[in-house]
């Protein structure tokens, strides 16, 4: 019998998705390589300025142009990316791990544990982030780690609450009953059946945290509490470029801005693909 003429309603999505994922992967790989390889090869003197070269537009010598005190923007962008990525990724990771653990524990145990943990979350979230950040950072010397600590400590709360609410909704599902009947411990149920179901939410929070941590870093630097302002971080670069932008010099804003946003979007793209794998139905629809 002749092969019938097959119609498939959901065909096109797969190919664009593959393109999207590979573009994201390439960008992330490039960023990681640049961040790891460039600094050892090309050293940047963070404080060297050359006032004679002030605000030169992009040229072969300075592909990204120079900033308002004559520093090469390309190199500063790469160095800045390194710091910002470190802040963003570490803070996001720490915040997500704490948030997921607390949220899942609260919901899985319920009762008093839940109430206690949630009041703890309330307490933490009561102090405005920036304030807590200011206090934490002010107690140390300005630098990367205090920024990371202050951002991570204040940003696990949303994750915790989201994870908790999802777990609360999941924990009375019949399949959890089935697991309990199968002898699963509370821990096992949480880790094996509940957490995988909330990972997409937690993952989304983590991805959102990356750019958000970068902006906290720049806000703290702006207040004089983050990185020293002369040290290249994307937040610092974008922050200081503001004045030049109003004067019509676009490059000090554009390039650091792109450095900030493109990797973020690439990470978001990869995370999106990962979330699709976590969703069993999407996974089989996309034949992953």
């Amino acid at each position, binding site marked *: *019998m002749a092969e*019938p*003429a*097959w*119609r*498939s*309603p*959901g065909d096109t*999505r797969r190919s664009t998705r593959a393109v999207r994922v590979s573009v994201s992967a390439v960008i992330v790989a490039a960023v990681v390589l640049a961040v790891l390889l460039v600094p050892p090869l090309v050293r940047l003197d963070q404080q060297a300025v050359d006032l004679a070269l002030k605000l030169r537009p992009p040229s072969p010598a300075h592909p990204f142009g120079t900033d308002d005190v004559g520093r090469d923007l390309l190199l500063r962008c790469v160095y800045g990316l390194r710091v910002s990525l470190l802040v963003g990724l570490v803070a996001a990771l720490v915040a997500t791990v704490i948030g997921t653990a607390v949220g899942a524990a609260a919901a899985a145990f319920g009762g008093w544990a839940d109430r206690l943990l949630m009041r703890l979350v309330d307490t933490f979230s009561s102090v405005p982030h920036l304030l807590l950040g200011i206090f934490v950072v002010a107690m140390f010397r300005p630098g990367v780690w205090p920024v990371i600590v202050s951002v991570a400590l204040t940003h696990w709360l949303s994750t915790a609450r989201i994870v908790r609410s999802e777990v609360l909704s999941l924990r*009375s599902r019949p399949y959890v009953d089935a697991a309990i009947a199968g002898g699963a411990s509370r821990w096992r149920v949480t880790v094996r059946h509940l957490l995988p179901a909330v990972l997409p939410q937690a993952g989304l929070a983590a991805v959102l945290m990356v750019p958000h941590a970068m902006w906290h870093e720049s806000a703290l630097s702006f207040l004089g509490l983050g990185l020293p302002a002369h040290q290249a971080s994307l937040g610092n670069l974008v922050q200081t470029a503001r004045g030049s932008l109003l004067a019509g010099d676009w490059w000090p804003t554009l390039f650091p801005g792109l450095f900030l946003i493109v990797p973020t979007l690439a990470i978001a793209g990869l995370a999106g693909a990962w979330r699709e794998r976590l969703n069993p*139905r999407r996974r*089989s*629809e*996309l*034949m*992953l």
Partner: protein
Amino acid sequence: MTPVLSVRDLSVRFRMRGGRHVAAVGGVDFDLAAGECLALVGESGCGKSVLASALLGLLPGNAQTAGTAVLTGPGDGPGAGVDLLAADERTLARTVRGRRVGLVPQSPAAHLTPVRTVRAQLEEALRELTGTPRAELRAAAVAAAGRASFPAGLLDHHPHELSGGQAQRAATALALVGNAPLLLADEPTTGLDRDLVERTVDELRRHADEGRALLLITHDLAAAERIADRVAVMYAGRIVETAAADRFFGAAGPRHPYARGLLAALPERDFTPVPGMPPELGALPEGCAFAARCDRRTDACRVLPRLTDGVACHHAAPDGAAPAGVGSAGVGPAGVGSAGVGPSGTAPEDAAPADAVPDDIAAEETTRA
């Protein structure tokens, strides 16, 4: 008279990782006329639900379809129907689903929105499908629930607060709201006690008697016998036999060895399963898919049998032979009389276009209506 639904050579397969395919439905043909009830039976996993989903355009994204399934309305002239497999999502959503084709889903509890009460979902369906004015919604919802014997007192429950049978009835009530000319009922009687089963199927029958077509997918042969005009037996994605219900359940019994085995497996009969396991749909054998389990298997079975005279078997029992081991006629309660309905399967080789329906079926449908 043109059939309400005319399915020709309908196939569905799922694309899987690694380029493999699962052929869930293969080359299915049947017609369904207004006022007619076709019972579709078959072993679990043979493709019944997938067939129903395909007719509603609700297959997952990795499914592929082939063939045609033309839905013709009473006003449509010949050739004017909608091909359900080719229609776009918009047409399906706006004019077909719920309005022209209703569905009682299998696993009703999973198909109800968990965060809303039954009443909310029922009233919403009534408002959207029948345009019932707001003031009358409450009463209409109670009435609609009553049609499927859903207790009015439970209308304010959320789906997870219902028992299995109650969820089933809720789903049936929702499916009946639109009074669609074609109703696909996928196991509408699971979880119901005998009384309720009868009440439900009688309601479905009444629904059909008002001039609508009913495709009853069921494992409950007693229920099928009670209301079906015709029975189609499906095996490994194909229809292997179609027969008039009275003949199928009657003394003559089915002709296909698989169908006979299926009947024999009933608890009121032998209560022994058809030996062996159904084939993997991902790797169907070349010839007759049932051959491996068949006691009449010969070399002829290496060739795929065609559906001729309502049966697709090289060794079909002759028309009128009594099924092995069963003397009594019928299963369970006495069958509903369904005089005048004959076999109406269409062989694939004369897979005619949707409008060209054999005259004899048309004539019979007229008698029935």
